[in-house]
C-alpha cells in the first residue's frame, strides 16, 4: 500500500492505482469524460487534469493516466488546473451544436455539469471560425442513435465494443476537428449489449431509440431494482415517472427506462439489451381487475366479491387437499413464494406444488451476463423447498395427466403454452382453476377466478439469483388498476378462510424466509424496505 | 257643464300634467341624472350601454332598461317575514311622496276660457302642514319595511330610520314656524305671494332665504334627512347595515328608489316655495321686468306666466341637482351624531330662530 495526499487528506491505495481513483476514495470527484472504471484508460479527453507534486516537481497531469506513487501530493483545484479545464471545455464546446432543447441527454449531460463549474462564459465571444458540421441523426443500430456533432471523442463506446463485447462495431476516423465516430464497414451496432454505449456516453451523442424523446430526464424518479429477465439478477435502476403533477400524459406508460446499477459481484456496470428493454411489459396489457366467470365469459368484479368466491371455493379442498395442485412461478419474489408455500403447502396442505415445469422455454447462456434460465427466482423457490407431491420436480403436470388433480392454483403461468393442444381436455377434469396473473392472457375456459397481481416494480421484495445471492428490490409505484401484491392476496385469503394452521402474516413469512434463505436476514431491513448489495450506481 | 264634473276634469288634468307630466318625469330623469352627474365629476362617463337601434342618447335609454329590469326581476318575499306588510311598505312611501305634490303651486293662476285655474291640484289653506304631514308618511314605509322583513339588518335600518325621521321632523317643523311667522300664512300661494314683494326699493326680492336665512340652513339639511339620502342615509347605510330595504328586490325595491327620488323633487319644490319665492322670479312682475327705476320691459301676460312656470321648474331642478351633488360629495353621518345634531344643535337653533323671529315680527311686522 502506498500513501498519497489528496487536497490535504491522506489516502492509502494499492500500488498501481490511478490518481483519479485515489481522489474518488476521499470523495474528490475529478471531472472526466473518457475515463470509465470498467474500460481501459484512453486519456484522450484531458478533462481530469489535476496538479500533482511528485519528488519536488509540480506538474498538471491527467489523473486517469497518472499512477499514484508514495508521497505524491495531489490538488484537484488550483489555478493551473482550472485554467486547463476551462481550456478543455472551450475546446469541446467549440463545435458543439446548440442542441440542448432536443438532446435527450440534457439534464444528465456532463458537458452541462462541467460547464457550470469550470466553463468560461466569455469563451464563445472569442470564437473565430464557423463550427464544423457533422452528420446528425444516424441510426447506427436497432437501439442506438448517433449524433456526431455532439460527440466529444471520448471513445468510451469504441472501447466498450472492443473490450467488453468484442464485436468492434465502432471506430473513429478523420482527424482534428473532423474527427468522427463511425460504424465499421458493413456492421451495425446490434450486439446484445449495445444499449450500454448509451449509458456510458457522457454526452448526448449516443441516445437510446427506445427512450428517445419520451420524457426529459429531470422528470424521472429512480428506484433501485433487480432485473427479472434472467436468473443473473442484474442490479438495475427503474427510471419512472407516474404522471405529470396533475395530469396524466400517457396513462399507460409509467416506466421510461432501465439503467444498470453497479454491482461488482453480479453484473459490473452492464446489462443486456433484452433486460434493458424488457420493462415494456410492466405497463402493457396488464390485468387490472379480478375476474369471475359466469357462463362462458369472465367478467370483472370487485376484490371483496372475488376473495369471497375464491375462499369459498378453496374451502372445498380443506378436507381433501391432496387433489389440490399449486403452480408457483419463478418470477415471483421470495416473499410471495414463501407466502404461497406457507399458505398452500403448510396450512392448506396441498397435494402438489411446483415451480418449474417441463416444456417451459429456456434461453441460452452467454459468456457475459445472460443466463439460460429466464426467470429471476428459481433458486429462491428451490431454497424455500416449494416442491411437494409424488411427482418429481418439474413433472407436476403429470399428476394432472394422470387425473390426480381436482383443483389447480396457477401463478402467472400460461397454461396453454405448457400443456399444448391437450389443454382443454386436461383441464376439463378439474373442479376448480384459480389463476393469479399479472397480464391479460387467453385463460383456458375452465379458469373460474382470475386475480390480478403486481409485477416486480410494483412490489418490494427480493430475488435469489442463480448463485444463491439474495437481492432486494424496491417498490417504485403502486400496482396498476386493482392489482395487488401476491403476499397481500394470500394474507387476505388466509384471514378469510381462517384455517387451523393459523393465519398468514408478515411475521411468519419473514421468519420462514430468514430460516430458509442464507443471507436473507442481513439484506432484509425491517419493514420490507429496500436493501442493496451495492448502492453505487453505474458510473457513466 | 256641471260644475262638479268640470272641477273634477280640471283636477284630473292637473294631476295628469303636474304629477305624471312633470314630477314623474323629473323623478325618473333624476335616476339618470344621478348617474350621469356623479360620473361627470368622478371622471367617468356613466351609464350609457342601453341602446335602441344603436342610438344611445347619452344613456337615457338606461331608464327604460332599468324599468324593464325591475319589472322582470324576481319579486322575492321573505318567507320568514310578514308578506302583507312587506308588500305594503313601498307603496306607502311612494303614496306619501306623490300626494304631497297636490298643494304645490307651480305657477300663478291663469285664466283659460274664462276660468281661473290655479296651478296646483288643490289649494288647501293648510298646504304647508299638509306637506309636512304627508312627508312623514315615509316613516311608516321605512319602519314597516324593516319590520316585515324580519331581518336584523333591516330592523336596524328601520330603527334608525324611525328615530332619524321623527327627530328631523321636529327640526323641520320648527324651522318652518319662522317662515309661517314672517309670512303669516300656512297656505302656500299666500306664502309665495308674500315673497313677491321687494326690499330696498325693489332691489332685493323678499324671498324666504333673505327673510329667514337660519331657517333655511336648518330646513334644508333636515329635509335631506327626511329623504334619507347621504349624508343622512344612515337607515340605508349600505356599507354598515345595508338598510331597511335589504330584503326587497325587483319592482318593490324600485318603488323605494322612485319614492326617494320623488321626495327629492317634493323637497326641491318645497324649498323653492318657502325660501326662493316659489314661481316668483326676481324683478319679474305681472307686467314685465321691473328693476327698480333702471329697467322696465313690458311683457305679455302669457309670457310672464310661462317664464314663471319655467323658472319654478328650473329652481326645482337646481335643488334636485344640488341634493345629488351633496349626496356624492359627503360621507355619511354616524347614527348617534345625526341624532345629536338634530336634537342638540339644530332644534335649539330652530327654537332660537322662532324666538327671534317672533320678537322681530311682533315689533316690526
Amino acid at each position, binding site marked *: 500500500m502506498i500513501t498519497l495526499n489528496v487536497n490535504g487528506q491522506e489516502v492509502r491505495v494499492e500500488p498501481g492505482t490511478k490518481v483519479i481513483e485515489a481522489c474518488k476514495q476521499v470523495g474528490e470527484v475529478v471531472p472526466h469524460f473518457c475515463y470509465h472504471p470498467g474500460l481501459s484508460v484512453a486519456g484522450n479527453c484531458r478533462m481530469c487534469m489535476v496538479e500533482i507534486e511528485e519528488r519536488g516537481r509540480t506538474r498538471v497531469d491527467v489523473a486517469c493516466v497518472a499512477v499514484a506513487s508514495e508521497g505524491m501530493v495531489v490538488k484537484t483545484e488550483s489555478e493551473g488546473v482550472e485554467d486547463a479545464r476551462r481550456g478543455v471545455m472551450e475546446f469541446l464546446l467549440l463545435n458543439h451544436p446548440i442542441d*440542448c*432543447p*432536443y438532446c435527450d441527454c*440534457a439534464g444528465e449531460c456532463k458537458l452541462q455539469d462541467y460547464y457550470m463549474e469550470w466553463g468560461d462564459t466569455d469563451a464563445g465571444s472569442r470564437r473565430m471560425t464557423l463550427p464544423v458540421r457533422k452528420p*446528425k*441523426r444516424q441510426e447506427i443500430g436497432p437501439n442506438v442513435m448517433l449524433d456526431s456533432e455532439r460527440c466529444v471523442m471520448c471513445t468510451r463506446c469504441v472501447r466498450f465494443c472492443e473490450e467488453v463485447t468484442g464485436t468492434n462495431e465502432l471506430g473513429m476516423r478523420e482527424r482534428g476537428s473532423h474527427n468522427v465516430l463511425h460504424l465499421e464497414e458493413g456492421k451495425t451496432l446490434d450486439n446484445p449489449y449495445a444499449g450500454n454505449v448509451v449509458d456510458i456516453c457522457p454526452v448526448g451523442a449516443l441516445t437510446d431509440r427506445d427512450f*428517445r*424523446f*419520451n420524457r*426529459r430526464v*429531470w*422528470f424521472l424518479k429512480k428506484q433501485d431494482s433487480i432485473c427479472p429477465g434472467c436468473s443473473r439478477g442484474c442490479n438495475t435502476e427503474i427510471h419512472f415517472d407516474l404522471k*405529470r*403533477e*396533475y*395530469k396524466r*400524459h*400517457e396513462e399507460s406508460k409509467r416506466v421510461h427506462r432501465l439503467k444498470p446499477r453497479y454491482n461488482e459481484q453480479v453484473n459490473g456496470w452492464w446489462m443486456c439489451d433484452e433486460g434493458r428493454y424488457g420493462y415494456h411489459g410492466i405497463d402493457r396489457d396488464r390485468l387490472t381487475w379480478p375476474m369471475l366467470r359466469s357462463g362462458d365469459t369472465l367478467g370483472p368484479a370487485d376484490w371483496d366479491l372475488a376473495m369471497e368466491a375464491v375462499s369459498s371455493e378453496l374451502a372445498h379442498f380443506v378436507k381433501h387437499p391432496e387433489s389440490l395442485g399449486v403452480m408457483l412461478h419463478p418470477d415471483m419474489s421470495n416473499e410471495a413464494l414463501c407466502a404461497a408455500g406457507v399458505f398452500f403447502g403448510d396450512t392448506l396442505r396441498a397435494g402438489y406444488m411446483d415451480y418449474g415445469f417441463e416444456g417451459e422455454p429456456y434461453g441460452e447462456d452467454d459468456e457475459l451476463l445472460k443466463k439460460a434460465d429466464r426467470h429471476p427466482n428459481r433458486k429462491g423457490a428451490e431454497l424455500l423447498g416449494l416442491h411437494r407431491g409424488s411427482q418429481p420436480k418439474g413433472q407436476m403436470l403429470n399428476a394432472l395427466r394422470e387425473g390426480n388433480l381436482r383443483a389447480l392454483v396457477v401463478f402467472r403461468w400460461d397454461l396453454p403454452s405448457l400443456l399444448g393442444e391437450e389443454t382443454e381436455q386436461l383441464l376439463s377434469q378439474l373442479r376448480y382453476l384459480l389463476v393469479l396473473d399479472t397480464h391479460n392472457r387467453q385463460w383456458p375456459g375452465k379458469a373460474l377466478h382470475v386475480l390480478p397481481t403486481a409485477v416486480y416494480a410494483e412490489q418490494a421484495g427480493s430475488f435469489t439469483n442463480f448463485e444463491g445471492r439474495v437481492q432486494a428490490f424496491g417498490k417504485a409505484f403502486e400496482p396498476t388498476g386493482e392489482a395487488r401484491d401476491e403476499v397481500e392476496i394470500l394474507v387476505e385469503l388466509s384471514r378469510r378462510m381462517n384455517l387451523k394452521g393459523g393465519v398468514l402474516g408478515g411475521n411468519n413469512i419473514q421468519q420462514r424466509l430468514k430460516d430458509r434463505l442464507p443471507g436473507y436476514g442481513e439484506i432484509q431491513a425491517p419493514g420490507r424496505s429496500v436493501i442493496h448489495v451495492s448502492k453505487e450506481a453505474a458510473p457513466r | 257643464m256641471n260644475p262638479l264634473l268640470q272641477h273634477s276634469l280640471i283636477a284630473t288634468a292637473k294631476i295628469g300634467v303636474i304629477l305624471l307630466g312633470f314630477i314623474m318625469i323629473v323623478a325618473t330623469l333624476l335616476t339618470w341624472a344621478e348617474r350621469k*352627474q356623479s*360620473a*361627470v*365629476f*368622478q*371622471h*367617468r*362617463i356613466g351609464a*350609457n350601454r342601453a341602446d335602441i337601434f344603436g342610438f344611445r342618447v347619452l344613456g337615457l335609454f338606461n331608464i327604460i332598461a332599468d324599468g324593464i329590469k325591475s319589472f322582470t326581476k324576481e319579486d322575492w318575499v321573505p318567507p320568514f317575514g310578514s308578506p302583507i306588510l312587506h308588500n305594503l311598505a313601498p307603496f306607502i312611501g311612494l303614496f306619501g311622496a306623490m300626494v304631497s305634490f297636490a298643494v304645490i303651486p307651480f305657477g300663478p293662476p291663469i285664466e283659460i276660457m274664462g276660468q281661473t285655474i290655479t296651478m296646483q291640484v288643490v289649494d288647501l289653506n293648510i298646504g304647508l302642514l299638509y306637506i309636512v304631514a304627508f312627508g312623514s308618511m315615509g316613516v311608516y314605509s321605512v319602519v314597516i319595511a324593516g319590520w316585515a322583513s324580519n331581518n336584523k339588518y333591516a330592523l336596524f335600518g328601520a330603527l334608525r330610520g324611525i328615530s332619524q325621521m321623527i327627530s328631523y321632523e321636529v327640526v323641520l317643523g320648527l324651522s318652518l314656524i319662522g317662515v309661517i311667522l314672517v309670512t303669516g300664512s300656512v297656505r302656500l300661494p299666500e306664502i309665495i305671494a308674500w315673497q313677491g314683494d321687494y326690499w330696498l326699493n325693489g332691489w332685493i326680492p323678499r324671498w324666504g332665504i333673505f327673510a329667514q336665512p337660519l331657517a333655511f*340652513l336648518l330646513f334644508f339639511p333636515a329635509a335631506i334627512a327626511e329623504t334619507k339620502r347621504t349624508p343622512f342615509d344612515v337607515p340605508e347605510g349600505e356599507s354598515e347595515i345595508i338598510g331597511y330595504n335589504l330584503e326587497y328586490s325587483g319592482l318593490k325595491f324600485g318603488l323605494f328608489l322612485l319614492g326617494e327620488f320623488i321626495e327629492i323633487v317634493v323637497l326641491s319644490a318645497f324649498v323653492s316655495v318657502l325660501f326662493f319665492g316659489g314661481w316668483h322670479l326676481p324683478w319679474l312682475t305681472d307686467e314685465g321686468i321691473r328693476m327698480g327705476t333702471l329697467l322696465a320691459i313690458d311683457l305679455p301676460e302669457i309670457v310672464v306666466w310661462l317664464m314663471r312656470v319655467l323658472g319654478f321648474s328650473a329652481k326645482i331642478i337646481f335643488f334636485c341637482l344640488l341634493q345629488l*351633488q*351633496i349626496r*356624492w*360629495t*359627503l360621507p355619511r353621518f354616524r347614527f348617534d351624531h345625526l341624532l345629536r*345634531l338634530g336634537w342638540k344643535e339644530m332644534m335649539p337653533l330652530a327654537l332660537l330662530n322662532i324666538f327671534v323671529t317672533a320678537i322681530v315680527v311682533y315689533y316690526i311686522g
Partner: protein
Amino acid sequence: MATRFVNIENKLPASTALYYPAIAGGLSVTIGHFLKNMLYHTIGLFGNKGAREKASFTLQYPEVMRPLPRRLRTRHRIKVHEDGRPKCTACMLCETACPDFCIYITPSEHDDSPEEKAPLEFQIDLDRCCFCGFCVEACPKDAIHMDTQIMETSSDRRENMVLRLQDLVDPGPVVVSGPEFAGKDMHKVLPHLGMRKLDHIKPRRIDLSYRERQATEQGS
C-alpha cells in the same frame, strides 16, 4: 441622509367646529370637477377627441381599448418558422418552469425538421395559468410568447380553456388591441382587419392544423 420621525400637527382648525365650511369646500371641489369635465364633454360632443378623452378617465371598453404595454403578459402563442413549423422543440423547459403545472407537451420525433423533435401536442390550461411568464423566460428557442394582447380568455367550459397547439400557433386577431390601434374606436378599426363585428373576435382556427399537416406529410 436621514430618516426621522415627525409628529403630525393634528389639532383641528376652528372651521371644523361647523359643518358648513367643509361641506362648502367639498362641494366646490366636486362642482369644480363637474364644470371642468362638463366643458370637456361639451367640446367632445362637437367631435373633439382629445377633449372627450380628458373628460373621462374611463374607456368605453370593448369599443375602445387601452394602449396595452409591450411587456404585458397576455395569452400565449407559439412562434412559427417561415415554413409554418412551430419553433417549439418540445424541450419541456416551460413545463418544468411552470409553477402551476398548466403546460402539457407531448413530444414526438420529427424527421423532416432540423430539430428532429417537435411537439405532437402542446396544451396550456388557462384555468391553471397564473400568467407569471416563467414559460417565456424559460424557453430556449424563442418559441413561446405572451404577447398576443388577448385578454378575453374566459369560457363557460373547462375544456375550452385548454389551448391546443393550433390555437397557440395561430392565436387569432393579434392586432386588434395592438398598440397601433390603441385607444381607437373599435368599430372604426375592425374594417381594416377584415372583420365586421365584435363577435368575430374569437380565436380563429386555421384550416389545416399543424398536426394534420404533419400526418398527411407522413402519409404521403
